[in-house]
């Protein structure tokens, strides 16, 4: 996906100022920055989640495989299948594990038969690193799983509709260290197949999981670069202050 000169306003307040950035499948991209810097706002522009906020206005150009995602011709429901999202608090549907995964493919018409659907459910759960843990209890409720498992279920749900991009908004904030490590390992496995963008408050996590890091501050994209460079030798003073804990 490519963003060029993106500005986002909530009413009169400008939340994102002239941001341009590219994301691809080869590199997991982390968005870091202090609270209120606009990183989640920008993430939400990438699958038009800001459409649900009445006062939000997006200017500039965002494309997926060259297609303008804000064009009137773009089917927003399709877009959100191609650009999936995982949220901070795991939010599985109040359905069985099976139906959590099967719901998306069903409504998008991705399966021609029950056997197809079974395959999609199995491969999605497998790719989300959850299959072994739930294969014998697919009829159990998704909400009965642990926090970490629920989050992997949500990732599986996103994967089931064959996205190109997966957006993650602080996916591990509500999880314990072991569940977090499993999600980070999963991100590592998904890299290359999907373009992954992760918003995180945890700089060590950004350093661990990403190959590119973008530092946002007060709506500006201050610095964007190779993760190892950002964390060992950042160019901008604001970046250096933030990552070394001299911020504020």
């Amino acid at each position, binding site marked *: 996906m490519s963003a060029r000169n993106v500005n986002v306003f909530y009413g009169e307040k400008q939340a994102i100022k002239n941001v341009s950035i590219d994301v691809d499948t080869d590199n997991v991209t982390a968005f870091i920055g202090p609270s209120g810097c606009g990183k989640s706002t920008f993430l939400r522009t990438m699958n038009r989640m800001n459409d649900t906020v009445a006062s939000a206005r997006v200017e500039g150009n965002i494309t997926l495989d060259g297609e303008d995602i804000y064009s009137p011709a773009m089917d927003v429901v399709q877009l959100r299948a191609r650009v999936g999202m995982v949220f901070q608090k795991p939010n599985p549907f109040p359905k069985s594990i099976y139906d959590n995964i099967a719901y998306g493919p069903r409504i998008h018409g991705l399966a021609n038969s029950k056997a197809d659907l079974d395959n999609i459910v199995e491969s999605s759960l497998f790719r989300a690193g959850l299959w072994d843990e739930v294969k014998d209890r697919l009829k159990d409720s998704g909400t009965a799983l642990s926090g970490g498992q629920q989050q992997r279920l949500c990732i599986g749900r996103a994967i089931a509709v064959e996205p190109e991009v997966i957006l993650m908004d602080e996916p591990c904030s509500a999880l314990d260290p072991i569940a977090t490590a499993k999600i980070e390992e999963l991100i590592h496995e998904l890299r290359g197949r999907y373009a992954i963008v992760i918003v995180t408050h945890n*700089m060590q996590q950004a350093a661990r999981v990403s190959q590119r890091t973008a530092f946002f501050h007060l709506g500006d994209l201050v610095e964007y670069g190779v993760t190892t460079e950002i*964390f*060992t*030798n950042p160019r901008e*003073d604001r970046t250096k*202050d933030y*990552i*070394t*804990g*001299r911020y504020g």
Partner: protein
Amino acid sequence: MPEQHTVKAFDDDINKLRGLIAEMGGRVETALEDAMTALVQQDFKKAKTVVINDERIDALEAEVGKLVIETIALRAPMANDLREVIAALKIVSVVERIGDYAKNIAKRVPKIGDHRTIEPLSLLPAMAQIAGEMVAESLNAFAARNAMLAEAVIERDQIVDSFYNSIFRTLVTYMMENPKTISECAHLLFIAKNIERIGDHATNVAEMVYYAATGNYLPERDRINDDDI
């Protein structure tokens, strides 16, 4: 850029680290000065003190090593903080070696006996003076995180190397002309070599300071006196 971390304890750790390195540097500079004074004045007691005091230098290296590991584990330093902490670890190891060279010089003092007539000896204090200054300046550069000061130290290594080559030739000539002094001169040769190595190590410290300050490595130096004796 604000100097201080939001978490003050982090600043305390970094300051403690710098303090330990400054103490270690001071002790090593004193060790070299005292070793050379002991040599020139044939002061065996002073030489012994240098040897004994080396233990404290070794203990400081261990203390810094421990503090670096704790800082990395607890503070997860990034960027320039990380480079400084890693540089500190490498630098104390080098400074401890410099202390060992000073101790080695002191150990040779009783073995040299009456050498007041060996003229080439008079070159050694001047050489040691420069090497000692390089050590002091490289550690000042570290304390100030100043890349330019570090570069200035590196420039001076040529002088120490030239000094060494000159002393070597002078001592060899002297030995050929005064074979009875071969034993003493051999010790003096080793001492000269030790001082030359101290200059090299000070240069290594300066290179690490440069990296910690800038995040870049200096290009390989061209050595003018390339014939390593």
